[in-house]
Structures are given as C-alpha cells and as structure tokens.
C-alpha cells in the first residue's frame, strides 16, 4: 500500500491532534518561556559564600575605613567602616565603586616603553643603567608609608633625590611648617572643636581631606539650621557645593582670597576684636576691600562674625600665607578648635616643585597624581595601575591596583588625630609590581614592605599609646606583642593614637606675608586626582547632571 | 490566569474578565469549527458543486443572469432568481405557456433541435438506452477548434450539475467544461465521436433547466454579442462583422485575443 497525499495529510492531522495529548507542546512551551525569562547569556554573579572584611581605602591619602563584602573570593561591595576615627563611616562616591577599578578598560597590564609593550627585565635594566649614570630622583606621592621608607632608603643609598608631591591639604599647612618648623604631616585641624570655620575656597563639603570627616560634622552641627552650632563661612568666587550650603557665602573676586584674609586681620586688629598684636597688613581695609569687590562694611561685619563664636579657624584651599597669618591673628594656631600638632608624621622631603633642571632619570611612584609632572628633563619611570590619559613617561610600569597589594596607610592629611592601618591584598595582582618592590629587587638593602610595616608596628607597640578600633577594639597596652598588633592591623583594625592637644604649637609673625598665587582646588576630585574614575562614578557623571552643580553667583 | 496555576485567586475582575474572554474565544472557535464541519459535510454529501455554482452565479453581472423566458421573448425583462435551475423554479410554469416572440435562427451555426442546450455551451441528447450524451455545442467547437488535449473522467465517476465535467486545453489555455446535468459517467467519447460523455442520470431525469427551442437563438445572440465585445480591442476596428458567420477555430485565428476572459465568460470554466 503506497500512501497517497491524502493519507499523509490524515496521518499529519492525527499526529498534530495526538501531540496535544502528550507533554510535548506544553513542556516545550514551559521550557521556552523559562529560557526567554532567563536570557542565559547575560552575566551571572558568581555563587559562593559571602564574607565581610575590614580594610582601608587606598585610592587617595585620606585612608577611609572600609568594609569589603567578598563573594566567591572577589570584593563585590564596599561600605564605610562605622566608628573610624577620621572617616567616621563614610566613603566618597568614588570609593563606593572602587572595587570595580581593577577591571577598568584603561588598566595597565604590562610594562610599556614609549607606548610599546616591554618586559620588566628591560625596564629593570634601563633603570639600572640610569642609576649608574645618575643623577636621579625618586618621587613619592604619599610620605610616611612603609613604601616611602623603602624609597627613601634606596634614594639615600644611591645618592638619589627623594622628593614628594603634596596634596592640597598639605600645601595649605605649608606656611605653618615654614613658621614653626613642624612638618605638615604632624599638623592637623581640630575641626571637631571649632565652632566657626572660615574657608577660603577649600571644598569642605566636597570631599576635602577625609570625605566623611567634615560632612558628618556639618550634618550634625550645621545642616538645615539658620543658627548652627558650627558656623561655616565660605569665601569663594563661585557658588560651589560648599558655598551653597554654608552658613554664609562670601562671594569674592577671583584670586582675592589673600586680600580678604588680610583685610579681615586688619579689621580684627584695628577694632581690637582680638588680643593678638603683631605685624599688620600694609594696605588699608578699603584698599583691600577694593580688591575683593566687597564693601568695607561687609568685611567689618564678617570680621565681627568670626570672633562672635569661637573657637574659630581659617582654612585655605592651598598654600596661602595670608590665610595662615589670619589664623595667627585669630589665635587659632596651637589652640583648641584650631591648628594642632599631633603625634606621628615625618620630616617633609623635598617638594617635587623644587626639582628642576636636567637629571638622568626620575622614578615616580604610583601614588603620585598624574598631573604632577616634575619640572626636570629626564627619562621618566612611571609606576601606575591605570593609564592616566596622555603622559610624558618613557616607561609605564604596572603597579598593583585597588586592594591588590599590601600597603600601610598612615594618618590622613589635616587629621587632628594620629592613625595607622594596613590594607592587605584581597585580590591577586598579576604581572604588576610596585615601586618599592622594584627598587628592593635592584637593591635588597632597601628592605621589604613587610619589614617596614612590622618595624612601624614595633614602634607603636613599644610607645604603648592609643588603641585599636575595628573587629576587636582594645588598647595597645592590652596586646601581647607587636606581632599581634601587626596581625590585628592586617585584619582591618585601625590604630588610633592620641589626639593633638592645644599648646604644642606656637607661631609669631615676623612680618605680614605678601599675597600668594592662590592654588585653589575648585572641584570635587581636585584635592587629589583620581587616576581614572571608577566605572560606576563615570556612569554617574554621564547619566545624571549632578556633577554640573549649580554654579551661580548672584551676590 | 487559570485556577490552580501559580497562586491564582478569584476576584471579581478575574471572573468578569475571564468569562468575557472565554465566551469570545469559544464563540470564535465554535464559529470556525461549525464552518469547517459544515464544509466537510457539504463535500461529503455532494453539495459542493451546487454551492460553488451558486457562488459563481452570484458574481455574474445582471446582464448574464437573464431568465430563459426573456431569451425566448416570453417576458420583457426577467433576471433569474434561481441560479438557472428551472427545476425548482416556482414561476417556471407561469411563463412556459406564453408564446415565444423570437425568430428561430442559429446565426449560421449548427444547433439541432433534438438536443437540449446548457449555458455552458454543452448539449444533452437523450439516448435510447436511458443515458444522456453530452457534447460541446457548435459555438464552443468553433471557438476552440480542435482541442490540444482532452481529459475525461473515468467511467463510474459521479458528476454534479454545474460541476466540472471534463477538461480540455488549447494553446496553453485550460478549459474546464461545466456539467449540464448530474449523473454517473457510463462511457467517454471525445472530439472525434461528436460526444464527450454518456451519463446515467441520478433518479428520474429532468432536463427542464436546459435551453431549447426559441430560447436558443435569444441566448446565442447574447453570447455572440458578448464574444464580439470581448475580442474587440478597444483601439481596433470590429473584426467580427454583425451578421457574419463565426469562423471555425477562432482561438487559432486570433491567438492574441484575451481568451482567458473570453472563455471564462463563455462559461466554459467552472
């Protein structure tokens, strides 16, 4: 029997009808719907146990305490460490996305020589050669670290210049170091006890110094109040975020901050609002007021407001001797709520700005911001975890990224209290090497990072001051040995020394300083510079108009 | 959505919505199923040809639906309401007795009076053995000439009135011939024999629906008229003079003409 076409149709009809009574259409529909719901090709988070570790943020020198949520061996979320003495549980917006930085598209993966891929061996050989020919300089971005010790020791052993780049906060403390001899790394603002703060363009609410420190203080004592417990006076030519939320915003002419500081000092002394006597600004209040674009009366009332509720402290955005002198006049140097000398700190090395002329080579640590370019003609060995855009470096050497290497974090700039913490590697760093290890491989006498950190722990342990905060808070005296301290720090604990006390600092002006070229960081990230933005922060920039903050000046 | 699936719970909205939706879906399905079942039934019971014919009849322009009594001149004007099936026409008797007013003429063609004519250009001739011979009429033969192929149904095939009787082809044009009456094919002939099919009618034979006598000239006049109109290109002079005699083998003579339309209109295709 040969089936006809009609028979085939009948068979097909039976097949189709019969299928309805089998699981085929229903199960396939169910599976296809599951498939269409899951989109198997989208990225899936790794499954694995979730644990939380404590560490410190190493993106910038401000060393915020950080909780790291780890899943399947990778950091998947960052948040602030509550109770941290300086950062007080806060992180900056960049910090919240920092764990993604290591996979940033501009991550440096291997050494580059003038844009060409090269090897560590070649880089080492080139550096050895340069070292032999001399002279060279080694530039550090954050002094006081264990790595700094290694760099400094290497420099000393090989006749190299050890120089350092300074943050805006450190620069602002420069005049006091010049006048008192106390290094900037031992100076801090006692913001916690100040009741009036006059800021000359310092982006206090925009992540100045340690981001959480002032914002917390402001939100507790000033936010939303017309008569706040903490008076913030912002002197700035544009309405920055800080100016927008300040108790008073003084809208001065661009670059006239020194003039205003001088005018205020003159009013304070002329009207005997302060007890201090000493050199006075040579120009009259009216002359100075003319420079600022403000009425003399405005300056006079501002001066009265300064002393109305003490303690008062003036903060400048950069190295501004007039503002420092105003602090001297206000009696804020060495006083409660003013500028204090605290423990720790290291002798300030040569500032990078002081380097000039011709040198054989310059080695730049990965902590040095990209825009810091020493004014020397030399072969540049630049360590970095990420490409920072265009560069004049001859050698680009990949440094470990975020949370990839062991490093210690000394006291953040401008802090009134001494701290010390250690960030242990939470991720594997492949093919990267930091400057300290690079130098230690060339000359083992420079020492290892671990040894330097241990030595620091030893010193803290023997001094016996302060205590640990973190997983198990306890005083240093309660620890069995320096190794225990090292271990605790490795687990994310933060050592906190004693806060600076009034009276340890004395400063007398010989003459009134002249106007300075104001170095004013105006933006959010200018206090320090991010090598690259964490992807999520970059996303933010693009997808919100938040960073185009209202910048108006209508006064 | 369905009770018992994925945490379904009844609310007023569900009851209202689902009942409306189910009612609509059921109505649509039932309609579709009804139409399908009835189609199957019609096909099984042999009503298909009739339905097809009715559909075709419905599309005929009014001029083509003239009653046979009008053709014979018994009435002034009458449109067939009955799909040319006079056997069931209630008014047939009323007009049949009237005298025709049309002169008997065949326009030079051969239309013997012993036969009955179908508007599809076939004739039916009662045979002595009780069967009926079916052939093409003279006008159709003159148009087609000698067909290239002829495809006849096998003996024993049931054919339906107005359904397809046989197929021919001429100059790559397929011609399907309508059956003038229903019945069983008992023998097949061909162009040579002068007849194509011999049918044994189903039940009592009734040829009342076929044209005869005075109706034939009236009908032929209209057919020739239309054929002339159709074969005349809009931009050419008339090629078929009035009163002339239809040449034999017109399809060969005028290969460029719109035979597709002409043949369809000449009813040779169901």
């Amino acid at each position, binding site marked *: 029997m040969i089936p006809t076409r009609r028979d085939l149709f009948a068979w097909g009809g039976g097949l189709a009808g019969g299928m309805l009574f089998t699981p085929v259409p229903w199960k396939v529909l169910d599976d296809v719907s599951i498939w269409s*719901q*899951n*989109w198997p090709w*989208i*990225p*899936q*988070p*790794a*499954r*694995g146990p*979730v644990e939380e570790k404590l560490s410190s943020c190493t993106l910038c020198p401000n060393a915020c305490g950080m909780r790291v*949520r780890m899943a*399947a061996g*990778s*950091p*998947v*979320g960052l*948040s*602030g460490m509550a109770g941290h003495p300086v950062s007080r549980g*806060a*992180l*900056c*917006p960049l910090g*919240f*996305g920092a*764990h*993604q930085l290591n*996979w*940033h*598209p501009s991550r440096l993966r291997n050494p580059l020589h003038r844009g060409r891929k090269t090897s560590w061996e070649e880089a080492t050989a080139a550096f050895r050669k340069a070292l032999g020919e001399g002279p060279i300089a080694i530039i550090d971005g954050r002094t006081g670290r264990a790595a700094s010790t290694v760099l400094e020791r290497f420099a000393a052993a090989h006749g190299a210049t050890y120089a350092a780049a300074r943050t805006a906060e450190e620069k602002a403390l420069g005049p006091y170091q010049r006048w008192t001899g106390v290094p900037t790394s031992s100076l801090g603002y006692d913001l916690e006890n100040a009741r009036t703060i006059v800021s000359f363009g310092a982006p206090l*609410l*925009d992540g100045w110094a340690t*981001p959480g420190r002032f*914002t*917390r203080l402001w*939100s507790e004592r000033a*936010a*939303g*109040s*017309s008569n706040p417990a903490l008076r913030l006076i912002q002197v700035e030519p544009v*309405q920055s*975020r800080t100016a*927008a939320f300040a108790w008073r915003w003084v809208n001065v002419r661009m670059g006239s901050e020194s003039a205003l500081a001088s005018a205020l000092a003159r009013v304070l002394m002329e009207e005997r609002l302060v007890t201090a006597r000493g050199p006075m600004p040579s120009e009259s209040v009216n002359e100075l007021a003319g420079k600022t674009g403000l009425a003399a009366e405005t300056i006079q009332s501002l001066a009265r407001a300064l002393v109305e509720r003490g303690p008062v402290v003036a903060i400048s955005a950069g190295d501004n001797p007039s503002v420092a002198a105003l602090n001297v006049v206000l009696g804020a140097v060495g006083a409660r709520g003013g500028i204090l000398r605290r423990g720790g700190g290291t002798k300030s090395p040569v500032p990078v700005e002081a380097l000039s002329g011709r040198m054989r080579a310059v080695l730049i640590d990965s902590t040095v911001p990209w825009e810091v370019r020493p004014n020397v003609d030399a072969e540049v060995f630049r360590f970095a975890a990420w490409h920072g855009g265009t560069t004049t470096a001859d050698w680009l050497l990949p440094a470990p990224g975020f949370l990839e290497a062991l490093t210690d974090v000394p006291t953040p700039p401008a802090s009134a209290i001494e701290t010390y913490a250690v960030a242990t590697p939470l991720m594997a760093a492949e093919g990267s090497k930091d400057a300290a290890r690079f130098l230690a491989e060339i000359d083992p006498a420079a020492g290892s990072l671990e040894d330097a950190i241990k030595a620091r722990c030893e010193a803290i342990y023997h001094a016996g001051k302060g205590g640990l905060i973190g997983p198990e808070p306890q005083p240093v005296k309660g620890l069995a040995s320096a190794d225990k301290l090292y271990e605790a720090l490795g687990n994310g604990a933060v050592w906190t020394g004693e806060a600076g006390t009034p009276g340890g600092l004395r400063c007398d002006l010989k003459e009134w300083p002249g106007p300075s070229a104001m170095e004013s960081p105006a933006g959010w990230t200018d206090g320090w510079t991010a090598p690259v933005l*964490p*992807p*999520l*922060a*970059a*996303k*933010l920039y*693009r*997808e*919100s*108009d*938040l960073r*185009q*903050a*209202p910048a*108006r000046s*209508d006064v | 959505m369905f009770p018992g699936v994925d945490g379904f719970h009844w609310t007023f909205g569900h009851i209202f919505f689902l009942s409306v939706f189910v009612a609509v879906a059921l109505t649509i399905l039932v309609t579709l199923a009804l139409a399908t079942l009835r189609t199957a039934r019609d096909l099984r019971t042999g009503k298909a040809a009739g339905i097809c014919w009715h559909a075709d009849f419905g599309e005929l322009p009014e001029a083509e639906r003239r009653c046979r009594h009008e053709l014979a001149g018994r009435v002034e004007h009458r449109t067939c309401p009955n799909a040319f099936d006079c056997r069931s026409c209630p008014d047939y008797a009323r007009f049949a007795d009237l005298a025709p007013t049309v002169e008997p003429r065949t326009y030079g063609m051969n239309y013997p009076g012993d036969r009955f004519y179908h508007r599809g250009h076939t004739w039916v001739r009662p045979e002595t053995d009780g069967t009926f011979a079916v052939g093409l009429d003279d006008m159709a033969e003159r148009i087609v000439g000698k067909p290239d192929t002829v495809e006849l149904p096998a003996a024993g095939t049931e054919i339906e009135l107005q359904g397809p009787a046989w197929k021919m082809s001429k100059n790559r044009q397929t011609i399907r011939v309508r059956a003038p009456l229903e019945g069983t094919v008992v023998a097949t002939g061909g162009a040579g024999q002068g007849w194509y099919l011999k049918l044994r009618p189903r039940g009592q034979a009734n040829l009342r629906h076929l044209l005869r006598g005075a109706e034939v000239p009236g009908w032929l006049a209209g057919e020739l008229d239309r054929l002339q109109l159709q074969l005349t290109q809009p931009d050419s002079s008339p090629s078929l003079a009035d009163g002339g005699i239809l040449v034999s083998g017109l399809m060969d003579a005028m290969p460029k003409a719109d035979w597709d339309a002409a043949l369809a209109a000449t009813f040779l295709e169901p």
Partner: protein
Amino acid sequence: MKARYGMAIDLDRCTGCGACMVACASENNVPRLPKATERTGITPMLVHPVSDGKTGVAFIPMPCMQCEDETPCVKVCPQQAVELDRATGIVMQMPQRCLGCRYCMTACPYHSRYFNWWDPAWPAGMERTLNPGVAVRMRGVVEKCNMCHARLHAAEDKAAEAGKRQIEAADYVPACVESCPTGAIRFGDLNDGASEVAKASRTPEAFRLLARLGTEPKIYYTSKRAWVRALAERHPAGEPSQPAAPVAAGGGEVKHG
C-alpha cells in the same frame, strides 16, 4: 506583623555628593553602559539638583517613591510583573516576567523607572564584582529601586537562623541609606511610630512629592526651607495662579515654568 518601609530624606543635609547613586548602582549590579545618556541610563537612585533661581540650592535624591495607594505602576502592568508587597510595602519589579512594554514608566509621575535599553555588559573580568544577592537584569525590561530587598532577605535569613521571625532594624538598611555621608537619608518602618522615619514624616517640615495625586508615596522629604517644600507640588494649594519658582538646573538649561 506588617511593616511599611519608607524613607525620610533631609534635603537640608543632602549635599548632592552622589555617594548614594554609586552605592546603589554597585549594590544592584547596575551595568556601566558606555552609550547611555542621562535619559537612557539606569539610575534607580537619582539626585536632582534644583535651585530657587537665586542662591538657594538643593539636591533631591529620588529613589522609587514606593507608592502605597493606587500605585500607578502596579495598576497598569499587564502581566503582574510589578507588585506592591503586602508584608513590607515595597513595590517590587520582576524583570524576568516583564515584557518591556514600558507602560509603567509612562504611568510613573516620578520617572523612577528605568528601561534597559542595552544589553548589560561589564568590561572583561568585572563580572566578578557583581553582587551575588541580586540577579542581573537583561536588555528590554524595566527596573527600579526595590529598597535593596536582597538586604531584607539577608536580614530575614539571619533572624531565622536565630529562630526569630522579626528582623533587627539595623540588619536591613538599603545601600543608599548606608552610604549617605551626611546621614540625610533615613530609613525605617513607617508603621512603627517610634521609628526615626515615622517621627520625621510627622514634622511640619515633612512633605511628599506630588502628594495630591493620591498615590501615597512612602518617601518623605524634610526641609526647613519653604521654597524647597514648595517643590512638592507644581502648584501649592491656595495659590493656583502662581507657578512654583524652582526650576531644574538640568544640563545647563534653565527653564522658567
């Protein structure tokens, strides 16, 4: 025990730093979309800068308002991909059921819903940083703030381990709340009269956005500044002819309504 989670955001404290937005995106595995603009990106938490046209500046962090009544998005979703959770008051979105019709987005007066215009993608290797508690959404679906309810689940698990049905309030804190450096965003159960949010919501400084639409949003804002409070409605009741002065400082364009 039913909870009704809500927020009270102190606009006098918000400095617009954006930490909440980054923390939110990180917590919720929001992809970095290279081609996204401010109108096609995904920002479950979005801070709007506003100004009174003079020197007054405020930043308004806007998560999903978690409307309690007549929830616009829940009502319109054709296939129940959006639900108002009865136990927590959280409006949750189920991307796996969403067909991407975006009707809910047109329904939301707060523009708090975001469509995945692109395939989610991360630079090679960065998938390792995805938060394991939160499933990545695919292209073509709508998503929104769901009050970090993965954290609620974690808190419930923790409580259950200890044999408790009630979670500790401190265990469930959304990422934006946790990240706010000024503590401007407070979070808690509005049904618990003693909670910080419930208290804040009852102060005269408290207001909700577009409350007159009747959607009962559970995000409260507080401000001592009258012009900021006036942002609540397009037209404050009683002065219908006076358009609210505040305008958006969006993309440098300043428009006076």
